[in-house]
Structure formats: C-alpha cells, structure tokens
C-alpha cells in the first residue's frame, strides 16, 4: 500500500512536470492539438464515408459503427494521454543507452519508461470523441442510462490495459533490435484493428481472429455495453485478456532486460 502511495506521488509530480513542459513549448502544443483534432475527426469521417452507401456491415448498423468510431476515439484518447509519449521515446532510449540511467533509479523501470510522459493535447481527441458519442447515441436503438456510462468507464480501464500490454510487449523487442525506431508507427496502425467489428476478422481466418482477439475486444465490449448487447461472457473475456496480457507483458519486459547490453545496443 505504501509503495502504491509512493508511485502515485511520483506520478503526480511527473504530470505536473509535463504540464510545465506543455506551457514552455507552446508552438509544439498548438501543433499537437491540431494533429489530434484532425485525426479524431478523420476517424469519424472515414467511417461515415465507408458506410455512406451501405446501411449494415457485419450486422452493425451505420449509426452503431459511427458510435464505435466515437468510442474508439475516447478509449484511445485515454491510452495516448497516459502512455503514447512514453512509447514514442522507448526505442531511442534503448538504442542510445539511456536506459542505463533509468535502471539505476530507485523506481520501477517499466513505470519510468512508459508512464513518465503525459500527452495533454489528447484532451482534444477526448472532447471530439465524447461529443460525437453524445450526438450519435440517440440515433441508435439503445436507451441511455447513467449506469451504462459507469460501466463504459470501468471497461475502458481494461481496454486501455490491453492496449498498453500489447504496445509494451511489441516495443520490448527494441531491446534486441535497437534500430526499430518506427515500431511505434506500426503499433499506431495496429490500434486501428480495434475500431472495426470483431466479426470482420472471424470471417477472414480463424488464426487471424485468435491472434487479434484481444485487440478486437478493446472497443467492441464497451460499445456492446452501451448498446445493451453485451453478455457476461463478453465482459469476462475483456477482463481476463487484460489481466493476463498485462502479466505477460510485464514478465516479457523483465526477461528482455536480461539481454540489454547498454549503449547503442
């Protein structure tokens, strides 16, 4: 308990430092805010265009798919706010041997590597996503209740955990292949898998479906809860996947550290 309190205190301090940095580099802040706003709008517009000539895709109505795009924007905004900037520097820290200084600090290396930066401009993404959810939700067949929002928020924690574990596992590969500084770009693209219906991958190949299964739960399960279509199984799968992937990614990071050879890989 004492340790958790200590980590919270450190994290609060890191958040404050990040905020100061945000005000110090204002041009960077505006540019970043524009980027996130443009991409969030794009994600929604893309689905609107893709479904402009079809009313149903894999059994999902057009409005449900648009709601899915809004939910993806909100869930990914939490993930990017908390971890994206940490993962941006990840491979460079390893490649240039800066991990040395992190390993000798009296704090968990995984925590420092992934949580030391917050991306405040992701708030733009959240505002657009949340605003769009409130706009499109009345156009679906579901009925609104505050309890649904609570459930959605709770499941978002597990969704973000899946995304985090997936990213950590793949980024850890940089310990062995230090030149792979564009792995983050690949992961950004792979996140897109979660913004489409699960059934899409089921029809393609059973192997592909199982390989991508955790990612397909990230948005689909919370949205099923919002639409009152989720079963207990759906929720259990999300929770089990999140916990087990987190444990696996943690173990993998600890295992990879044994192969870390310091400066320039």
């Amino acid at each position: 308990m004492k340790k958790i309190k200590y980590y919270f205190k450190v994290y609060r301090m890191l958040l404050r430092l990040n905020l100061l940095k945000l005000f110090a580099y204002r041009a960077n802040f505006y540019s970043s805010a524009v980027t996130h706003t443009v991409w969030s709008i794009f994600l929604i517009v893309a689905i609107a265009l893709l479904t402009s000539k079809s009313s149903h895709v894999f059994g999902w109505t057009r409005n449900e798919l648009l709601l899915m795009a809004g939910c993806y924007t909100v869930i990914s905004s939490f993930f990017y706010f908390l971890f994206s900037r940490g993962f941006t520097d990840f491979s460079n820290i390893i490649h240039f041997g800066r991990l040395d200084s992190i390993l000798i600090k009296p704090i968990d290396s995984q925590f420092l590597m992934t949580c030391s930066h917050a991306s405040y401009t992701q708030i733009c993404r959240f505002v657009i996503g949340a605003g769009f959810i409130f706009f499109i939700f009345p156009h679906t067949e579901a009925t609104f209740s505050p309890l649904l929002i609570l459930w959605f928020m709770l499941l978002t924690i597990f969704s973000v955990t899946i995304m985090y574990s997936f990213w950590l596992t793949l980024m850890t590969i940089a310990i062995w292949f230090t030149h792979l500084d564009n792995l983050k770009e690949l992961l950004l693209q792979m996140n897109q898998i979660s913004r489409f219906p699960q059934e899409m991958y089921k029809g393609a190949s059973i192997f592909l479906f199982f390989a991508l299964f955790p990612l397909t739960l990230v948005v689909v399960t919370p949205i099923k809860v919002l639409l009152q279509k989720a079963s207990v199984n759906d929720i259990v799968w999300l929770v089990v996947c999140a916990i087990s992937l987190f444990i696996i990614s943690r173990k993998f990071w600890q295992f990879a550290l044994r192969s870390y050879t310091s400066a320039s890989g």
Partner: protein
Amino acid sequence: MFFLQFQEVFEARSRIIVYFLLGCITPLILILFWRGVKTIPGWTSAEISSYYLFVIILGAVLMCHQEDHVADIDIKEGGLTAYLLKPYSYLKLKFLNEICYRLLQGIIGSIVLLLFIFLFPSLFVIANSPQILLLSFVVAVNALALTFLFKMIVGLLAFWMTETTGVFETTEVILTLTSGILMPLTLLPLWLEKIVYFLPFAYMIYFPVTAFEGRLPVATLVQVIGVQFMWIIFFYIFYKNLWRAGVKKYTAVGQ
C-alpha cells in the same frame, strides 16, 4: 551518385520493411471491411480486394515521404547548408534519394504482389491490354513526380514554421481521404467525388490504381496524363518560387 544514395538507403532496410508493413495494415483491414457490405455499387468483391492490393503496392512505390527530412533535418537542423554548397540542385539530390526509397519499397511490393497473385489469383484483377498497361505505367511515373513535388512543397513550409507536425498530419489526412487510399473515389458521396476530381490528390493514387486494374479506357488515361502534366508544371513553378523565397529566409543556425 545514384549508387551512393542507394547504399545509404539500403542501410535502413529493416526500417523500410516496417514502413512497408505500415502501409499494408489499413488496406488489408479495409478489404475485410468491404466483405461485410452486401452490395458495393460498381465493384465486385474481387475488384475491391484487387483495388486495395494495388493501393498497398503503388502506395509504397509512388507515395513519397521526404517532407519530414526536408523540414526537420535539412531546414530546422541546418543540414541544408551542405546541399547548398554542392554543385547539384537540392531538388535533384532529394529526388535521387527518394527514388532509392521507392525502388526498395517497390522490390518488397513486387514480392508481396507476386505472392498474392500466386496465393489468391481470383482476388486479383489487372489490365490485360499492353496499350493500357503502357499508359498505366506513364500515369504511375507522373504520379510519382506529382507526390514528390507536393511533398517537397510541404517540407519547404518549415522555412516559415517552427513546428510543422500539425501541417504534415493534416496533409496526410487530406491525402488519405481524397487520394483513394481510404476507398475508391466512386464510392464517395457524389458531391465529394466531384470536388475530389478537381484536386491533385486523386492523380497520385486513385488513377494509377484504377489504370492498372484496367478500369479506365484509353481516352480517359490520356486525359489523366494530361491533367497530371498540368499539376506537375503547377507544382514545379510553385516549388521554385517557394524555394527562392525560403532560401532567403534560411539562416543555417539550426533551430
């Protein structure tokens, strides 16, 4: 000169493979997405799959990405000074460098293409007339010149801006929506389709892809080549003016 550039680019081959994979993800997801749509107006399932496979290959070969390097390394960090001292034009050197990247991506793309044709022959539709294939090749070469000049112009904006990420990302979004990367332009709402044909972006990906698929008759291909030439001349003049004005502003201190 070309071989020196190629050697430099070849060093980063593992990164190039990752970049190629990056370009594959969205089109592959979209192939799966369209499988869930009952009827796609004007397209068969094979044609739509083929369209996205061509988007992967031609996107890798034709879509230049030098704007980050131009802005960050050359203009902001002062790397441009070394180019200014050389007896070659900056545009030519950048083009040679970019061609090497496109060539390497093209080799990877061709391997993937052959693999797809071998594994899923029914999913692949390609023009069978030599005349159309020849004209498609011209369309592709023009598209490469077009994307290269466009990205150079975008990169040169760094002469006037300290932070360019926002502009670059906005450009990327516009390109994805209007160049045919997201979906065939004929599937866009009619009002948007009409606007998109007036912009240069459709001539970068959509027309080369549909040309190789054999969806465009000879007359349309000739018309496309004409419009591409017009845009190339426009971009070239624009680039020259921007370059002249930008170099005057360049202080080579590295920001």
